[in-house]
């Protein structure tokens, strides 16, 4: 659906004069907008989770809570403001009487072309060239647009507070900058989470899925989804069964930004057309040149 719709948008480009939809307009003031992911050549840093190696011990979830100063005594049932990393115990068996549990660690995918960054009203979200999508809690106004924009439904919200802010994982951007491992990758006892350069991880992942004896689904989730993500997954069962949505290869931000960038063109066109109409119709209706304002104004 999305691809055809996007083609349609391009085909619709000729109506740019009507509302400027689809026209890529190089607007000068767009310097104010966050830059589009100037990723370093090797793809920045990333994490690879091999779900087949995960035993569901939830050490990563606990380490994440500790690292982010979140309460460790609750039992989250999904991603939430107190669990930015959540180990989801998925039943992947098609037969309800014989459940088969496959854990998967879920968190922000730190997309390469993040919809949340494009959507954020106040530019509180930013994609670093090294990989992480970071968040400035001093800017956020809590509008929750990012929650709807994110194709993975990742950003959470501090519903319980009087002044609520958005919360999400940023792949421990501070630890990464200090040359350390993200907390979850460090905590995992089985090596299910690997941290490194994105292109190295893709090479490792490709070796695993191409292994003839391998049990893997032949797809690296996150390699191309919504323009690629800094979180990669391998699995032995279909990714949708693990709760990872099937997504197109382009970010939802693309169509939206295409339209947003046409704004100056739309404004100029509408204003010009209206001004033209004013002079044409004034001539046609042969009205006096002064504008007859309300007769009662100042009529004392």
């Amino acid at each position: 659906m999305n691809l055809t719709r996007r083609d349609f948008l391009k085909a619709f480009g000729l109506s740019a004069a009507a509302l400027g939809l689809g026209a890529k307009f190089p607007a000068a003031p767009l310097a104010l907008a966050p830059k589009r992911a100037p990723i370093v050549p090797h793809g920045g840093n990333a994490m690879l989770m091999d779900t087949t190696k995960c035993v569901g011990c939830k050490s990563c979830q606990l380490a994440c809570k500790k690292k982010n100063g979140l309460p460790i005594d609750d039992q989250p049932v999904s991603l939430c403001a107190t669990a930015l990393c959540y180990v989801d115990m998925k039943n992947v068996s098609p037969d309800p009487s014989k459940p088969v549990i496959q854990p998967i660690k879920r968190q922000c995918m730190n997309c390469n072309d993040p919809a949340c960054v494009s959507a954020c009203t106040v530019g509180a979200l930013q994609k670093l060239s090294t990989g992480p999508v970071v968040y400035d809690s001093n800017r956020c106004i809590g509008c929750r647009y990012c929650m709807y924009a994110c194709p993975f439904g990742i950003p959470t919200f501090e519903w319980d507070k009087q002044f609520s802010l958005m919360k999400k994982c940023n792949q421990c951007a501070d630890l990464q900058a200090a040359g350390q491992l993200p907390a979850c990758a460090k905590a995992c006892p089985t090596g299910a989470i690997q941290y490194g350069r994105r292109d190295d991880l893709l090479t490792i992942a490709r070796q695993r899925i191409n292994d003839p004896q391998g049990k893997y689904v032949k797809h690296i989730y996150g390699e191309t989804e919504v323009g690629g993500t800094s979180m990669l997954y391998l699995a032995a069962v279909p990714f949708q069964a693990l709760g990872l949505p099937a997504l197109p290869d382009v970010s939802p931000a693309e169509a939206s930004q295409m339209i947003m960038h046409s704004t100056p063109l739309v404004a100029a066109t509408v204003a010009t057309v209206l001004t033209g109409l004013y002079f044409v119709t004034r001539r046609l209706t042969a009205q006096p040149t002064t504008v007859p304002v309300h007769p009662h104004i100042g009529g004392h």
Partner: protein
Amino acid sequence: MIPQPLIDAVIVLALFILRIGLPLGLLMSIGYWLQRKLRPEDFESATTFDGKLTWRKRLGREINALPAWFPIVAMLMAIGAGAGVYRLAAGLGASTNLSQAYPWGLWIGFDLFMVAFSGGAFTLAAIVYVLNMRQFHAAIRPTVLTGLLGYASVLIILMMDLGRWDRFYHFIIYPNLNSALFEVSWCILLYTTVLVIEFMPVALERTRWERAKNLLRKLPVPLAIVGATLSSLHQSSLGTLFVIMSERVHPLWYTPIIPLLFFISSIAAGLAMVVAGGTLSYWVFKRSLSQELVGGLGKFIPWVLGVYAVIKLGELVYIGETGMIFSSGVYSALFLTEMIVGVLIPIVLFALRGCRASRAWSLVGAVTVLFGILLNRFDVAWFTLKPVPGYTYFPSLIEILIQIGVFAAIVFVYTLVGHYLPLFEGLAPVEQTPEPNVFRPEHAY
């Protein structure tokens, strides 16, 4: 076996009655009772008093001169304000039913349709000042006021919706030009300013500030052009909001050209508001445009809705999703209701000369347009979002009370302005022998 969609519909209906109808009815009856208490006979007899009025009696008389619904509306507004204070003090989680899967709800739906309904202000200003159809001029003042109140209420509700409402000004100092919500906020702010300036003549008319009045006399045409430009930007970028939500909005509604659809339908909604306002102000305030002119505005509606329908359905044909129109269960029902009640019926009605000549039928036609667009905005923002297992959304009592309070505030201010300011000047009582008008101050005493 009863089909599941039917059961769903019945449950939603029951919820609406229980959660919205009941509290509203209860509040209205208390208000009615209070109003009877507030307007005892001795306020009347106070007029024969020896000229010295206590403030209490004076206030009583002023209230007495206002229309009967005023105290009810004032009370609903006060309750809404109380609920608003509770929301700000308690936080979003405690006061709303919003959740991880439904971070936006009733309030955003309200913002969407209220902005569309307020489209009358830019449409009419463009018709009168840009297209030079000055015959519609007399309807400008009430329409601009409706628009102004609509946008002001949207600003209040938007503020209620922010997790950090104390930082509402951040969108001014931290711009993100890629964000549709950024553009919406800016345009609404600027356009509300335009509306305030457009409304100034009414506020200043009875003052002696001649310089300001002279300045305002030069402004209508540029203001109409700026206002229509800003409106075309934010009416459409309210649609752009949903372009990024390709994974959540149902394919029948999701399209990258949703901004265009929002913009065109806002023109239809705006025209319908002016037409409905024509009949309502005729009935309630005994003043209105002549039905000939109201019908003249109604003539535009089939054209605008026609363009809307062609683009909306044309896009589905182009994509090849026409089959979904009939095969998507509840979604089909919603889509067809929108298209039949909100588009087809008004096109037919306003194409008929008999309908345009009748105040009552024009009102019916206008209400169907407004209903269709209201449903469309709620469909996009709420009803057709892909369900997330384990989550449902229905607004909480606080959300509803704040919403009702905002509606009440609109009626409250409108009544006051109509009572004390020259809002209906130029709108002569038409097609009827003039009656004493409760809205003219000289009749208030």
